[in-house]
């Protein structure tokens, strides 16, 4: 489902954030990327749909080339790769419903959408996605009047509205109270199981990673330091991922 080969990302001016990553993710996996902050998890995820431009390497997602894709091809690849952000990244002044509807932007005709006209099917789908995260009753509310946990659920609904093959989530619970972590992660697991969607979720919390992942990829200084099932994660490996012996 996701094929990453030799990925290298250098952020200006000269920070090597991702330093030669190879990764194959199969359909239906729930991959948790584990690592300290600054290990390159965020940059790696942002490179997968080219929100950050890779310096070298190739990326294919759901059979489509992401690297080397032209503008139109990139948009087609992007609409099947939904992203959930640490800071939710909702449009604050827009309604909840409009935020979810934004997930359909890659599918609808551009000009009518800019004028605020969306096909009824897309509107219905957006409401359905909102219902799946249990927030149908808040559809008319302005996004910034919701709590953090609710906002992240709206962001998940927006991701679902993209009808994606893959969902990437960058530290989706890091900006929330600890007790909300499991509610968000539970929704992600349900999506993974019920819709057979492939998930790649970055986490810095070990317990959460162990509880939800079918596979754990440990990042350390821009490289993959561990790749295996949660059961194979020994204390020595954990120490290697989190160790600060040679931290930058």
């Amino acid at each position, binding site marked *: 489902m996701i094929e990453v080969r030799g990925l290298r990302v250098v952020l200006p001016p000269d920070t090597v954030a991702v330093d030669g990553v190879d990764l194959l993710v199969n359909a239906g996996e729930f991959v948790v990327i584990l690592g300290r902050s600054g290990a390159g998890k965020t940059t790696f995820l942002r490179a997968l749909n080219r929100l950050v431009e890779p310096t070298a390497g190739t990326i294919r997602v759901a059979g489509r080339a992401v690297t080397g894709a032209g503008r139109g091809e990139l948009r087609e690849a992007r609409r099947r790769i939904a992203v959930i952000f640490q800071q939710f990244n909702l449009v604050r*002044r827009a309604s909840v419903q409009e935020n979810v509807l934004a997930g359909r932007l890659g599918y609808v005709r551009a000009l009518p959408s800019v004028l605020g006209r969306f096909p009824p099917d897309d509107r219905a789908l957006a409401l359905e996605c909102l219902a799946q995260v249990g927030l149908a009753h808040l559809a008319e509310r302005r996004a910034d009047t919701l709590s953090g946990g609710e906002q992240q659920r709206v962001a998940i609904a927006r991701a679902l509205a993209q009808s994606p093959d893959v969902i990437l989530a960058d530290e989706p619970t890091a900006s929330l109270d600890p007790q909300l972590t499991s509610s968000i992660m539970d929704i992600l697991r349900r999506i993974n199981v019920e819709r057979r969607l492939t998930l790649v979720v970055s986490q810095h919390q070990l317990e959460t990673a162990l509880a939800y992942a079918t596979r754990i990829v440990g990042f350390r200084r821009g490289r993959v330091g561990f790749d295996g099932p949660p059961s194979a994660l020994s204390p020595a490996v954990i120490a290697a991922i989190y160790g600060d012996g040679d931290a930058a």
Partner: protein
Amino acid sequence: MRRALLFVGFLALGWAAWDTGADPVRLARGVPFILDFLWRTIPPDPRVLPSALAGALTTVEIALLGTAVAAVLALPLGFVSARNVAPAPLFYPARTVLNFFRSVDTLVYALVFVAAVGLGPFPGVLAVVAYTTTSLAKLYGEAIEGIEPGPVDAITATGATRLQILRFGVLPQVLPLFLSYVLYRLETNIRAATVLGFVGAGGIGFYLQTYLRMIDYPAASTVLLVTVAMVMIVDGVSSRLRDRLV
């Protein structure tokens, strides 16, 4: 370093005072004439009230129409002059051109347009449009540069086109600011439009200048009072609207 700057500052001000012939004694000698002028404006002449009101209406129309047209024309210019959304080959020329045209005041534009299309309120409207478009474009551009990148990332990630990203990621963040800038410009344009009549570009300024030239001070004071009332009313309404936006 700071002392040196302070010293240079004082030197510059001192030289400017000398060069402009700024002289407190001369000002003091002038006070009786100011008082005499004020004395002769009393009482205001009510007979010119209708023409003053008509002039005020024209001035408000010039400012309203000019600001509205400029608010729309400035939109594309604002986007191309924002570093974070415009491609570099567009951004740099746009900034330069805007800065060039913005350094010309409304009154100067009015002189140009009166020469081009003749006397009346129309060249006044054109002058307001010319100045306000560039000044709003700069304010728009700066508002766009101040947006949060997060929602833009999120909209980009949905596979949206460039236009959709602007509409759904950028515009909702800046629209209230844009409206607030437009209202602020309307307030300053009302003031700017009061003097447009001095150069033949219509509005209440024409009456003020005429009565002053005729040395009809009571009539001129009526016109001035109407001007003050007009500016205060527009300011009040506009600032109340602005408060509700942000």
